[in-house]
């Protein structure tokens, strides 16, 4: 029933049907006053319904010669041109950046999961600092939102990573712009800390409320280029009896995050925990929150131990090849692994 597609209340829908309006076309071709008297609503409400109906019925009209046939759609060619200029945020580890096609992509939701101690929070903090690298140095010059659900955001560590990042930038400018004084690094670690907006979330209610509020927040702070949620799992793992409800809430939350990423051209990074799953008679590690959650992100990266080295594996991505790259966590943050065999393993 086409009327069911309109985002109006159930009682209004019922009135439309009772008055004989069964198709969108019938609503679209009537006048406001007629509609208002027929279903006994005010003229402004009738206008609202009319607008919804005409917007939707435009989808049905097809004219072959028009390129912009469907409202709100985009051709693949336009998207390709857009993607060429789409930016990415470096992880400070060249191998990891390579398999990611440059870094963590804006306009996409990336999920990163792993066992405790593998470095998820470290990568989160590194990205919150790296998004602020100025445009002159190949960065985005943006700000970061860090949503902390577990209390793992330690300011001492952010300061360490920020200082190391500034030192690296100075070294870079010293090598490449020896004569040019204008490239002196003017950033101070405190200004990097100032550009990280921090929210501490203590329950799943607050987490959902915050994701709802982010739309308004990012509109007011247009230079935010990355949202990091550390971790998206924690509050949804504790005492949720109704699993179906959990799936619906998580689904809605992830849709909102995808919308944020697309509308504001920013990157959303969700850090996830692991759990064990019983598969074919043995236990395997898998990311938490269930199978339906695995569809919620654009890209999925799993961090794991390979012998004594930390590796990142691209588990799911519409555009990147499945590959694995080594990285290490140092006192300066995430960096390349120091092992001799630096070949990227193609799986």
């Amino acid at each position, binding site marked *: 029933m086409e009327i069911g597609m309109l*985002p*109006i*209340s*159930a009682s209004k829908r019922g009135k439309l049907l009772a008055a004989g309006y069964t198709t969108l076309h019938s609503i679209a071709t009537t006048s406001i006053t007629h509609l208002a008297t027929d279903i006994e609503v005010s003229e402004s409400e009738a206008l*609202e319904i009319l607008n919804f109906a005409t917007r939707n019925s435009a989808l049905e009209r097809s004219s072959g010669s028009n390129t912009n046939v469907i409202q709100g759609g985009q051709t693949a060619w336009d998207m390709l041109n857009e993607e060429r200029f789409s930016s990415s945020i470096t992880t400070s580890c060249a191998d990891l950046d390579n398999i990611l096609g440059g870094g963590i992509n804006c306009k996409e939701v990336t999920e990163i999961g792993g*066992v*405790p*101690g593998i470095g998820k*929070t*470290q990568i989160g903090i590194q990205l919150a600092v790296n998004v602020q690298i100025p445009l002159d140095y190949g960065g985005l010059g943006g700000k970061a939102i860090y949503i902390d659900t*577990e*209390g*793992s*955001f*330690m*300011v*001492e*560590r*952010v*300061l*360490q990573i920020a200082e190391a990042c500034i030192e690296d930038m100075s070294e870079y400018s010293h090598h490449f712009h020896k004569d040019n004084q204008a490239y002196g690094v003017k950033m101070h670690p405190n200004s990097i*800390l100032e550009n*990280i*907006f*921090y*929210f501490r*979330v*203590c*329950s799943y*209610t*607050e987490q*959902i*409320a*915050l994701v*709802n*509020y982010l*739309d*308004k*927040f990012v509109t007011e702070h247009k230079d935010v280029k990355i949202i990091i949620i550390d*971790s998206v799992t*924690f509050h949804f*793992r*504790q005492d949720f009896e109704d699993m179906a*409800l959990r799936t*619906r809430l998580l689904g*809605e939350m992830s849709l909102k995050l995808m919308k944020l990423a697309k509308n504001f051209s920013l990157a959303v990074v969700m850090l996830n*925990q*692991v*759990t*064990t799953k019983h*598969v074919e008679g043995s*236990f*395997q590690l*898998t990311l938490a929150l269930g199978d339906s959650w695995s569809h919620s992100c654009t890209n999925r990266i799993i961090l794991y*131990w390979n*012998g*004594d080295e930390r590796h990142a*594996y691209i*588990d799911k991505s519409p555009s990147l090849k*499945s590959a694995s790259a080594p990285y290490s966590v140092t006192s300066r943050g995430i960096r390349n692994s120091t092992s001799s065999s630096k070949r990227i393993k193609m799986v």
Partner: protein
Amino acid sequence: MANKLINQMGLPKSIANIFAARNIITAKDALSLTEFELMELLDVGMTEVTFAMAHISEVVCPPCQTALLLMEQRVRNESLAGHLPTRLKGLDEALCGGIPFGVLTELVGPPGIGKTQFCLKLSLLASLPVNCGGLEGRVIYIDVESKFSSKRLIEIGTKSFPEIFYKKGMAQEMAGRIMILRPTSLSEFAESLHRIKVSLLQQQVKLLIIDSMAALVLGEHDSGASRQQALGWHVSFIKSLAEFSRIPIVLTNQVRSQIGDESLMYSFQARSHSTKEDTPVTFDSHLVAALGINWAHAVTIRLVLESKSGQRFIKLAKSPISPPLAFPFNITASGIVLLDDNGIEMKGPEINNIHCQGQNALSNYER
């Protein structure tokens, strides 16, 4: 935050009444439904629902701070920017000053390795006056297995800080600041937690020690879902307690033996593993921490105490602010003493393994 009433949020009367009519009273009720479900339930259009939810979300949402503000607050308000020094030089350096405030620090190791000794020393350190490097506050010590020994506490005190403890009445004052609770069940523990929460700020409590968390949880439920749920609730509560009061919370955990070949892998690892030729499996028997992987995610700092070839080590197995270091230590009359402040850097997941080799008289210590 989540229990804020909707009719007190400044929503237009008409929509607030609709929420109340459908028995959606608190913000949590509203946020526990998807917007589509709300539209169906309240019989209003999508735009009204979105507007109302945006308003409710903004009210319930936690406040925004910047990382700079956090750092400045801590430097200004807290001793050593939010750390409790352990007086073990190498460990304190690695931990940027000491046991951090506001997060959970876990001590895990085999029985008799020195976890309770460490806790006794920490409670003493927290009760010391500020000019001696302490927090000058009360300590709540939750002693599940009745391991707390006041005699040992005074001994550690007199040997480590003789100049303070020989003063008249100081020993009594120090010991008087440490409050010991002995809950016999998980529910009793939960009750005492609620009471602790109320008195935390009033009573100037500066440290909470739970010795041991494992004994509390493992004694109650059979393994599985009910235990995980009970643990989950307690973990959340203790974490929020740590955060809102900005005190260090130290918990001890037991070990269990590894069951079978427990080197868990992901599905993509399993695939590539089976195609390679079998690498020889090393039968290095070791222990793992109890309480599961969920718990391992929840603690912020994990200190592993183990014994390898007769030498005890304390390792920084999980810490967002420290390199993976292992320090050899001994237990003396004045508590734990590090033998080497530089520490040995450990690569890989090896640091998480817990050994218990070559210790016959673990509970004794050199006098």
